[in-house]
């Protein structure tokens, strides 16, 4: 997972796989809707984090679907 200056830069990148177009997500929205919100990211320093990681991740896939516009690229197996 890498950062690019814009979607155009991803598509121009020598390593870009056209099948991964759904793998492009805007960083600011990703931060606002996932990384700023979910305990999975917020509570990693809690001593009991590992016990609660599943609970702390609840709703994340819905948020990811929202950020990706429902792309199948971001659906789990």
């Amino acid at each position: 997972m890498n950062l690019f200056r814009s979607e155009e830069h991803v598509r121009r990148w020598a390593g870009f796989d056209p099948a991964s177009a759904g793998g492009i997500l805007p960083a600011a929205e990703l931060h606002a809707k996932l990384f700023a919100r979910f305990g999975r990211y917020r509570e990693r320093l809690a001593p009991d984090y590992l016990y609660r990681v599943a609970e702390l991740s609840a709703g994340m896939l819905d948020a990811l679907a929202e950020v990706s516009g429902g792309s199948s690229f971001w659906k789990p197996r």
Partner: protein
Amino acid sequence: MNEELARAYHIVMRSFVDTGRAPHYTDIAREMGTEPEHARLLLHELTSMRLPNWLSPGTDLIASFAPFSNIPNHHRVSVDGEQRWFAQCGLEALALGHLFPGRTVDVASTCLDCGDAIRLTLRDASLVALEPSSVVAHSNVPLADWYVDVGKS
């Protein structure tokens, strides 16, 4: 889930935050007051849990432990102006603010296409600055396949 595993996880995360590097399993053993071999086995269990944490292949050495990388890369992380850390990837770079409460976290990365700078500034749960504002994250591997080869995602 066992208590020792949770403790080992916490020791690894704390070590990254405090020093910028992963502990060796003998460090984990010393902190836990256990035998090195027991800590080595715990570390292997910890990195087999379908979390984004893994060892360097064929070794007992932590390569990456989200959101940190133990291998220097192009996602350089500074806290209050001191560069000591590396982010696991572009995605996990966005999670770093939470691990340094009340401090300013700067991520200096580069675009793989043009080589130009990308900068993020985080403070707690806020993304304070993003340059350029058009920055995107990209995975070449669908989420469903991340744990087949997470290093290539």
